[in-house]
Every structure is written in structure tokens, then in C-alpha cells.
């Protein structure tokens, strides 16, 4: 629901993080994000699949058909080496960015 509030590009970063430790299908990624952010980030299907296929076009992830644990056919996405590099860079950038933002916010609180 909060997808529309996200900074542009942030969703892509979160998606990459979601499959950092192993391939997930689209539904799984959405669910993982929702659980991790306690529902704060729960992209609708349109945003989710646009993001996935956009990332695939940028060659940061690649999708392949496979089987889920309960025997359903689904498309699983995994990080490419390029995706892994992008993720690392983006995380660093985000950390710096967030530190800067917090520094300002905390200063105002005092």
C-alpha cells in the first residue's frame, strides 16, 4: 500500500535485497517485503511485476520457471552479478543518505 510513498528507485533496491540470499518468485518477494516492513511496504501486483521485469531488462536479475515447495509452477528470480554489484552500491548510498537525513532530523529535535 505504501508503494506509492516510496522514493523512486527504492522499490527496486528492496526487491534486489529480497532475493539476495536466494531466488524467490514474484509472490514470495511481495510477501517477504510486506513481512519485513510490517506491511509498510506491500507493493501491488502492477508495481511488483513492472519492477521485476524492469530489473530483468537492466540485467540485474534473471527469471526462470521453476517449482514451488508445494508443487506450483512459478517464475523464480535471482540476482545476476551485475545486480549484486548494484545492490552493494545502492545500500552504501542509502546508508549515507539515511545518516545525513537523520543527522538533520535529530539536530532539529534537540
Amino acid at each position: 500500500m505504501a508503494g506509492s510513498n516510496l522514493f523512486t528507485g527504492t522499490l527496486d533496491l528492496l526487491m534486489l535485497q529480497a532475493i539476495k540470499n536466494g531466488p524467490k518468485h514474484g509472490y514470495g518477494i511481495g510477501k517477504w517485503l510486506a513481512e519485513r516492513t510490517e506491511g509498510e511496504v506491500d507493493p501491488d501486483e502492477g508495481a511488483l511485476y513492472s519492477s521485476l521485469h524492469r530489473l530483468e531488462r537492466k540485467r540485474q536479475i534473471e527469471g526462470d520457471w521453476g517449482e514451488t515447495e508445494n508443487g506450483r509452477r512459478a517464475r523464480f528470480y535471482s540476482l545476476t552479478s551485475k545486480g549484486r554489484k548494484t545492490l552493494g552500491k545502492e545500500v552504501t548510498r542509502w546508508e549515507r543518505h539515511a545518516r545525513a537525513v537523520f543527522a538533520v532530523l535529530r539536530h532539529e529535535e534537540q
Partner: protein
Amino acid sequence: MKRIFRARDFQPHADQDLSEELQAHLELKVDDLVKQGIPEEEAREVARRSMERGQGAHATAAPHARTNLRRRLLLGGVEDFVLDLRLTLRTFRKSPGFWAVSVLSLAVGIGVNSAVFTAIHGVWFAPVPGMVDQHRLVDMVPVTDGRDHWQWAFPDFEVVRDTETPLMAISAWAEGYATIGEETTRSERALVGYVTSDYFLVHGAQPSLGRGFSASDDEIAGENRVAILSHRMWKDRFDGLPGVLGEFLVIDGNAYTVVGVAPEGFRGARVNLWSLDLWLPLSEHPEATNDGSPFHNRTESTVQVLGRLREDATVSGAQAALRTVFANLERDFPESNEGRTVKAVRFGRFPAQNRDLDAFAVVGVCGLFTILLLIICGNLAGMAMARAITRERELGVRLALGASRSRLMRLLMLEAGVLSVVGGAVGVILSVLVMSRVSPMDLNITAPGAAFEPSGWMLVLSLALSFVAAMAFGLLPAVRFSRPELMSALKDDSGAGGWRVGRFQRYASSLQTGAAFLLLLLGVLFFRSLTTLNEEEIGFQPDGAIVADFGTGGPFLSFLDPSEQGFPSPAEGGYTLVDRLIENLGSVPGVSAVALSNGFPLDRSGAYLSVRPSGQAGTDSVGVMVEWTRATEGYFSVIGSPILQGRGILRSDDLDSSPIAVVSRSFADRLWPGLDPLGQQFTQVGGDGQRPWTVVGVIGATAASRATEDLPQVYLSLMQSTRPVFAIVLRSESDPSALVAPIREAVWSVDPSLPAPRVMPVRTVVGWATQTQTSGVQLAGGLGLIVLLLASIGIYGVVGQTVAARTREIGVRIAMGASCGAVVRGVVLDAYRTVGPGMFFGGILAAATVGVLRSTFLGLSPVDVPSFVSATGLVLTVVALASLGPALKGARIMPMDALRNE
């Protein structure tokens, strides 16, 4: 490759893919909800609603999905291709010899062809330099009773010029030599175009400086003496200075004002042996103003003509209009124009009169070299077939493992493709390397502005040829062996012998060997003709003989006509010039003999005369055709031909004494068989009233002026000519280049207005005369060796494959006690049987060719035994060598191995 094409309709696939993915998402969500205890139907409803909320999921994601799918498919195609390529390269590595030979022979074929393309383009199709809009130019050829003429009668030209036709303009010109320069300055001979005023307009030659001729320039001789220089002459004589306009130039003793300089490279439209050096108005032609000027005569052909079409006109329209004009001329002047009409042909580098013949020659040359490439293709196809036989099991295994037939075929074609690309590239590079070192002049092609430059045109044609070649030699094995008979291939049938190594390759090798034999035979025959020419038959000693003529370039001698230079003729007592030239030249250090003559053996400038013995009028009215040369005392010492009988020509044989002649042995034998020729007299047939010539001396056989003729020779005294023309001939052991300056000094010390002589060894002149034979030897011999090389590769392949295919049979024979020698003999004899028919027909063709060429090549016999023996020996040796390797391999076959396996 197919998959790439299929990727075109990726859209439905991509959409379907995405739909499936979204469907899976829905199912997973339902599963989850059900797991949380929600009844399935309700869960399905919730999931669907949530999907709808995320409406447009499909629409937003679809474009990305399509791009991704397209890329996946393309990548798949490329991956397959890369894999195939890698496989191909691996097979190259596995048999490097086979591929090296294939690439090399293909490179030779493509290289030779692209060199020929370059040459033909440079000479034939490249535009004539300095002329614009050449497609609007028309050649007009007068035709009398079906015969083409080179020149027009000037009055005919005038009528056409003054008639309204589809021609925008028409111009006429005549060519002639003139001496440029004043007495005090360096003078030179130049080829002058005497032209009508529209000449530069018609040619589309925009002067690079000044102007062209105007109508008023051509009106009255001597009124407006103006000249236009060629770009070259402007650079050479006036250092390319713009101040040349308005300068005076002395031409044949008259001063002309330079009014223009022709565009760079423009030396006239024609591919002549000479290029024009400058242009004067036609009214300045030495013969233009005479009362009986040939330019006013309807029966004299005096000028060449070129026309330029109007923008909207066609060649056929021009021809129709011209024919009407000529029909009127025929009606008005029946006595001169009877049967004369005209044909109009689009302008080309080569004269319209000969164009069919020239085109035939070009097509012939192209055809010859394309045949070479065909041979190579046949060869490669044979080799590829042979290889495919040994690879049959590999291919069978691939097929059994599930490779599709199209995949196998693609693999085989790819091998051919890679081969042709590499071979073609090497060939083109070779041809560019070679052709950049050769100029048209080296090949005796004197087309103005012709150059051998690689062109895009050549590149495209060569690549197309490579591609066609790949198709030609790749397709057959690909079709045949992409469907190996699976079971027999896997059953290890190879080496069992059979039809497969056989007919096609055998015919191919036989054909090649025959072609090689034909070409080698021709080469050897030409060479024999050339060597006989150089040794005994020419009858003079070219080494040490030097000619100084008055030519300006081009492979012909040019002679000086002193009366043109204003010297008194001998009839007026003007022997001084001749005497003083001989005297001054004789004192040049190192010169042992000197003479003046109007010809030299093999100089290709012969004059002919029909003579008969005096006092036999009527008995032999046809007479004997002889070639005659006028010379001064000392001529025979210079050419090195001893007097066999009587005396040579003397200084005292002048106009005051009775005419004498020195004749060749063959002449004496023809006219007075069995009699003493000395003192005999002969006259010109039809020359009644002339004083007869008395024979005073006899020399041996000397070569005629042309290498292809064998005529009786007559030598007359130069001093007994009323209008002598001559070049200088002398004998010296010095280096000719060291004699250039002393000879010029000697000539100019007689009279500084004489043009500078061109000094060269007689060997050069002989080289010109024997150019045809020399090129024949080089072309046929070179081509023959190349084809023999290719043929030997083919034979090696055939014999090798035969041995491989007969492994089991040979093994059995050895097991039965056949000796090593017997096996080798059997294999080599088999090779001879293969090439035998080809050689037989090659030999017959060579004899037939020589029979046809006999009139052109002196001393060439169609059944020259040494030539046949040497060519046959060479070919048989090469065939034996080519088959020896495989034969020895066959002889070493271990019977047990052969029976157990291949």
C-alpha cells in the same frame, strides 16, 4: 539462425509468459490464504480482488517482459551460432593441413579474380579523366558496306554539324606531330590535336585555366594562332605558372598564344597509344590550307568525330537522325558516299569500332579466371566430400545423440562459410598487395588515366564470389551428409570401399589436370616460339645496338622528317644534314658504327612493296611481297648482320647514281632461284617508268619488322630517297643511358632546332615486338602452374581418400602376399588412369589452339615434340608425386589393423 527469425513474433509469447506468471501469483496467494484457514472460494475471491486492485499489472509489466523475451531468444540464437563456430574452429585445428590448403587455394582463386576485376575496372569502366557527363557522349562510326571506319570525311562532318539533330554539339579532330620550341630553346616533339571549336565543349573538358576554343579561332588559318596546353605540358614547360596565358609558344616555326590549359588528366577522349600534348584549331593543321586539302575531299577520311547529346535525347534517336543525313549525302554525292551510312554508339573508353572485339576479350579473360575459381570449387567440394566420408561416423553419432538434421547441415555450411570468408579475405588482401605494385603501363595498357586502384565494386564482387564459392563447395556435402545412413555409419563401414570415393572427384581431378596440361603446353609452346625468335631466326645482334628515334613515348619508333623541319631535300642538294649527323654521331666516344635508317628489325614500322624481276612484265603481275628499309652506309655493321655476297650500301649510292638494293637470301631465292643474284634487277609492280633497282649485295635472313611475319627483306639507300625520313641507329658497348647526353649534344651541334632524340637499347624495341609472346608465356605458364598446383592438391585428395576407402581391400591384398611396390604401383597407376582422359583432351585442345594462333606466332608448330614431351613429363611427375604420399601410406597398412578396423 532460425530462432532469430522466429523471435520476430515474440509478442504473443511474451504476453502469454507474463499471463502465466500472474496466474501463478494468484494461485500462490490462494494457497497462502487457504493455509491461514480461509475457505478456498473466499480466498480465491480475495486474491482476485487484490489482483484487480493492482489492475494493469499485466499492462505495466508487459513491455519489459517483451523486451526480455526477445533478448532471451536472440541470445539463444547467438549462443548456438557461437557454439557452432567453436565446433568449426575445433575441426580446423584437428586437420590444419586440410584447412590451410583449402584456404590457400580459395585465396588464389578469389585473389586472381579480384585482381582481374581491379584491372578491368581500372581500364574499362573508370571514367576518362577530365571529362564531365560522359554518359551523354556519342561515338559516331561511318560504315561503308558493312565495314566500320575510324575516321570521317570532313565535308560529311560539316553537313552533320550544320543539321539539326538530337546532338547538342559535335566536334572533329585530327592528330599530328609537331615540334615545339624555338631554335634557341629546348625543342621537343609533341602530339597535337587539331580540333574544331566545339571540341572542349563536346568532351566536357572544362579548361582548368583560361578558355577553350571559340568559333572565331577556327575560321582562317594564321589569323588567330592560339593554343591550349595539356595540364602536363603546362606543368613541365611552364612550371604550372598561371602567367602562361598570353605567353607565346613556337610550334613548327610559328608563334601561338596560349589561351588555356586543359583539365588535369585530360589527354583526349581516346585510348590511344599516345596522349595529346596540346591542342590547336583545325585550321592550323599543316594540310588544312592546301588547295587540294584532304579536308575538302569527300573521299578522304581525315578526322575523328565525337558528339554530345541534348539533355533529353537518346543514342538511338541520334542514330536515326544521322542516318537520314547520311542517306541525303548518299543521294547528293553518289560518287563518294555510295553505300556509306553511320552508326551511333554510346561513348566508352575503347573505340566503338573495336568495342565488340574488346568486350569479347574482357569477357574471355573474366571467363578464364572464373573457370579457375570453378576448378577450385570443384576441388574443394571433392575434398569436403572426402572429408565428410571419414567424418561420417562423427556425424552419425551427433545425429544419434539428437542433433537435428538442420543443425548438422548448418554446421557443415558454416565450415564452408568460414573457409570462404577467410580464403576470400586473404585473396583480396593478396590482390590489393599485388595490384598496388603494378601499373597499367607495366601490362602495356596505355589507356590515359587508367589505374589499378582497389574499388568498393571489386570488394563487393569478390565477396559475392566467395559466398557463391562457399555455396558451391559446401552445399553438396552438406545435403549428402546431414543425413548419414545412421546404422551403416555407426556400424563402422568406413574403409570398406565402395562407390563413394569416386566419380565426382575423379572427374574433377581429371578435368583439372587436363586444364593444367593445356595451359602448360601453351606456355611451353609460346616460350619455344619466343626463344627461337631470340636465338637464330632474328638474324641480327640486338645486344650492343642502340636506337635514337624521335618519339615522345609509346612503344613505337618515330622517325624524323627533315623536310618538315624546313631542311632542303636531297633533290635540292640537301645531303648536309644526313652527312653531318653521321659525322658528329660517329665521333661520340664509344660508338663503333652509326647509320640512319627508316626502320629496324622488329620495330613494327615496316613498309611493304610488291616487286618482280625486271623484264618479266606480265608474266607475274602479282609480284613478290617484300618489306623494305632505307638505310645509310654502316647499317649492316650496326645491326650486326654480315654481308654474304657483294657489298653493302655506300655513301656514293645517292640520287646521282642508279638505284641499288641489298636483299635477303630468301628474296634472291624467290626471284632468281639457282641464279647469281648480283647484278639482277627488279622493279615495283605497277611502277612502270621507274628506274629498276640493281642488286649489289646479299645478306642472311633477318627478322622482319614484326615478330609474326617472315617476309623477304630489301634494303635501299636512304640517300636515293627524294624525301628521307629516319631514326639514328648505332652500335656501342657503352651503357645506353650514358650515351643519352652525348647523342643529344651531337644532334644539336648539327642544328639546335632538331628535336631531342629518345635513346634506348634495341632490346627495348625487341621487347615491344615480342610483347604478345612474352605475355602469352607469362599468362599461360603462370596460370598453368597454378592450375597444376591445384590439380595436384585435388589428386592428393582423391588418391588419399581412395586409399582410405580401400584400407580393408589393401589390407587383404597385403595379407595375401602383395608386395609394397605392387601396392604403390597400383595406387599411382590408378591416379594416372584418373587423369588420363583429361590430359588427352587437354593435349588436343592445345594443338587446336596453336593451330589457330599459328599465323600470330612465328615458328610455332602445333605438334612440337619437345614441348609435348616436357609438358607431359612435368604433369606426370607432379601426378606421381601427389599420389606417392597416400600410396606409401597404403603400402604400410597392417593387414590385421585393416581387418579389425579402419
